[in-house]
């Protein structure tokens, strides 16, 4: 229960910062100022936006399917929020440490799709219906390259547990029960003879333990943009043709929930990318001979310093990825449907299949 409340509070905080950052980054890239009035540099703008939305009337269209219309936002947010249950925030802090976390996350996100269909149908509106159809088609297709990229990480790490994957990517490797005698080698290959178990830092991140995971990371990042309906994959909510996509009929509180679910999805996919590829809550600084940067910036596990450093690294890496998502939105034009499907099925999926094969071979070199 405590984990539920803490995660919810953390998520709300991140989403409010993200909504503000989105407007400021957009304004900066278009040579505008963005919000300036509310608070210093307009920093209270998104808080006030949320308050405004909560005060608005909750309009349910007369021709809508009322039950489905009311249920859909709750289902969508519940599905996305359930994904946070398996995300490790620090070495010791994880809401539920189940052994098949990665697989669970992939499955629970697909619940989101049912909610989208419900919202699109329940609205009884052409635009909402088209938006939901496009969104679902896109999410279902891009789950395949994303799933294959995640599969290659699972093959390298030999685990479906997010916390175990996190421990493998840093100097705390031997602290995890069951991994006491494991060793990390540079690029994962023992024959090179460079033991990185105590060097830690960036040299033990998954993209360094097996460099081909860098390609898998790129595939996952592109696919995750599509899964969270971000530009350049935002045809589900293309403003110029569909007005707003599946949530066109929603207002007030229900719109706020949908908005929150959408931004939570962005945060969730970035968190997963950080945990699987970019070293999770581990520090990027390696130990260099007498300069123990990694030890200094990891803190003591179980003490306050360990929690603070772990949370700091995880969240700062996530914010870098989120900033990249915002920047890409204002850099690339929207893809057409045929280009979208071409990219997914004829480019990303074959490459991802190749990566899975190579990851298996790499794992054989690692043992």
């Amino acid at each position, binding site marked *: 229960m405590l984990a539920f409340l803490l995660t919810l509070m953390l998520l709300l905080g991140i989403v409010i910062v993200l909504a503000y950052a989105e407007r400021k980054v957009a304004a900066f890239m278009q040579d505008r100022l963005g919000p300036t009035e509310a608070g210093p540099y307009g920093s209270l703008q998104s808080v006030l936006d949320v308050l405004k939305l909560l005060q608005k009337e909750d309009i349910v269209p007369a021709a809508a399917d009322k039950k489905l219309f009311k249920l859909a936002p709750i289902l969508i947010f519940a599905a996305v929020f359930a994904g946070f249950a398996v995300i490790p925030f620090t070495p010791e802090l994880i809401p539920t440490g189940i052994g*098949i976390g990665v697989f669970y996350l992939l499955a629970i996100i697909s619940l989101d799709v049912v909610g989208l*269909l419900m919202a699109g149908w329940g609205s009884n509106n052409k635009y909402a219906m088209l938006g939901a159809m496009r969104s679902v088609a896109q999410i279902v297709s891009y789950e395949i390259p994303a799933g294959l990229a995640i599969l290659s990480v699972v093959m390298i790490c030999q685990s*479906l547990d997010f916390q175990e994957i996190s421990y493998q990517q840093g100097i705390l490797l031997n602290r995890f029960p069951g991994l006491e005698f494991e060793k990390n080698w540079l690029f994962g290959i023992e024959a090179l003879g460079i033991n990185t178990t105590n060097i830690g830092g960036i040299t033990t991140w998954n993209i360094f333990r097996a460099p081909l995971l860098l390609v898998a990371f790129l595939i996952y990042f592109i696919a995750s943009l599509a899964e969270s309906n971000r530009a350049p994959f935002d045809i589900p909510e293309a403003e110029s043709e569909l007005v707003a996509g599946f949530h066109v009929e929603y207002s007030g509180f229900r719109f706020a929930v949908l908005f929150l679910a959408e931004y939570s999805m962005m945060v969730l996919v970035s968190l997963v990318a950080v945990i699987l590829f970019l070293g999770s809550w581990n520090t990027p600084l390696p130990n260099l001979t007498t300069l123990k940067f990694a030890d200094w910036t990891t803190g003591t596990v179980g003490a306050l310093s360990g929690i603070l450093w772990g949370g700091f690294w995880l969240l700062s890496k996530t914010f870098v990825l989120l900033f990249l998502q915002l920047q890409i939105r204002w850099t690339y034009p929207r893809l057409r449907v045929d280009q979208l499907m071409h990219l997914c099925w004829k480019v990303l999926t074959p490459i991802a299949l190749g990566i899975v094969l190579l990851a298996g071979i790499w794992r054989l070199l690692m043992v």
Partner: protein
Amino acid sequence: MLFYVFALLAIVSGAYMVLTRNLLYAGFSLLLTLLSVAAIYVLLFADFVAVTQLMVYVGGVLVLILFGIMLSSRVHDKSVMSENVNVGWGITIALLTLIGLGYTIWQAGFSSLPWLQQTDTDVLAGQKSTVQLIGIKLMTDFVLPFEIASLLLLIALMGAAYIATDKQKV
């Protein structure tokens, strides 16, 4: 206790799915049935089966069913409703199946089975999940059925692709 909650939920939503006339509501109540069955799997320590159930049935089959209903309904500006046909035969077959299943369960006598009385409640026995065991079993004892199932799926996929292509007569 939790088992009865989820079992009740599964039965009620399953009954609603059968009894409702609106196909779309039937689809959404199927979601609830599948979720409660997944919860029952979790209570039986079958975490992998539970998540696979979510992945395959909710993420795949159910979305496909909903897509099908949404694309094909409202043909003449009204939602498609399911109709009652073959009432007599349906009731007869359902009753016969119920009697057959009930008889089998009664004959099996669960509470007196020896392995059920001796088994430990700590099924996982220190293991974090059932994935490792399932993986080893699939690659050793059950590799032939596993491969045949994958072949069957591949054939079904090819067949679907063949049916869906336009046959352009030159």
